[in-house]
């Protein structure tokens, strides 16, 4: 009985902590963030399993976690109003080459993060080459390049 209760408590506490820690933590993960997540996993793992290393306990825990995860996704699809609460919503960070600084500051994202995503995804070099930069709900930054003379335009199919 207590395995199921423990798993449920840990699931929601972890969910709440990850949710308030902001999107930055998930999408743009640094090597250190990765290590941090391993540590979080290790610290909670013992609290959940305790000294019960039985197969039944492991099965109960896995079943509870997966059930709760499925439950959340069902809630999300059934009740669209819950969607923004359960998952962060996408937000525009760069609009027509202009950095929306008040937004990026609040979302704890630097100009460097956006330019990095622009380089990585589209080989862009400057802010002006970005039409939109969007912080997705997963925490990743996606880039819509501005169509202009140069490398990018070549990639766009043209009507004769």
């Amino acid at each position, binding site marked *: 009985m207590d395995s199921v209760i423990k798993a449920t408590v840990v699931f929601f506490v972890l969910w709440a*902590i990850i949710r308030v*820690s902001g999107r930055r933590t998930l999408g743009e993960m640094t090597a250190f963030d990765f290590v941090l997540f391993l540590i979080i996993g290790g610290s909670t793992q013992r609290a959940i399993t305790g*000294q019960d290393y039985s197969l039944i306990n492991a099965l109960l825990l896995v079943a509870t976690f997966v059930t709760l995860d499925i439950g959340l996704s069902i809630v999300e699809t059934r009740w669209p109003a819950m969607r923004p609460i359960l998952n962060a*919503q*996408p937000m*525009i960070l760069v*609009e027509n080459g202009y950095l929306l600084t*008040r937004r990026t500051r609040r979302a704890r994202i630097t100009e460097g993060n956006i330019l990095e995503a622009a380089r990585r995804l589209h080989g862009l070099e400057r802010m002006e080459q970005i039409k939109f930069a969007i912080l997705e709900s997963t925490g990743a930054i996606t880039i*819509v390049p501005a169509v202009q003379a140069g490398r990018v335009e070549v990639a766009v199919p043209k009507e004769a």
Partner: protein
Amino acid sequence: MDEFASRQIPVREDMRFQRRSWIVERVGWSLLILLALIGLSGAFGIGPLSWQTASSGPLSVEYERFQRITRLARFTFNISGQTGPELRLHLSDAFQKNFEVSNIQPRPARSTAGRDGLDLTFATDGASAARIVIWAHSRRYGMSDITARLGSEAPLSFWVLVYP
């Protein structure tokens, strides 16, 4: 366009909700900081708020008022005054039920099942003070009202809160 106005292209935004969720985020951070501070204070065990001493007559006990389940905790019983060749320490029912004793120093000469709890009898060298240390794991969470009694002296009561 105002930075905090909601855009529709290329994604649909709800900036009012976004700004509210930022506030919730900040509240969450302060809760996390608060949690860490409470942890440092010892209210979750191991810290200044947790270390306690209770005494009654010749018997006193140093213990942790806040404990965590399965964690090893120390109960130090100090006995002052003439003790005689033998010394009997009675620990109540609640202690026996909620704690798993892992070590007692010194080893009791006799350990008997009392009327309601545990009776430990120690041999002494007749000195004017003695110390008994009991190491125990808490096995049940919640509040425990423990009573310790030395021989036929007045009982010493103290409580321990065990976190899950």
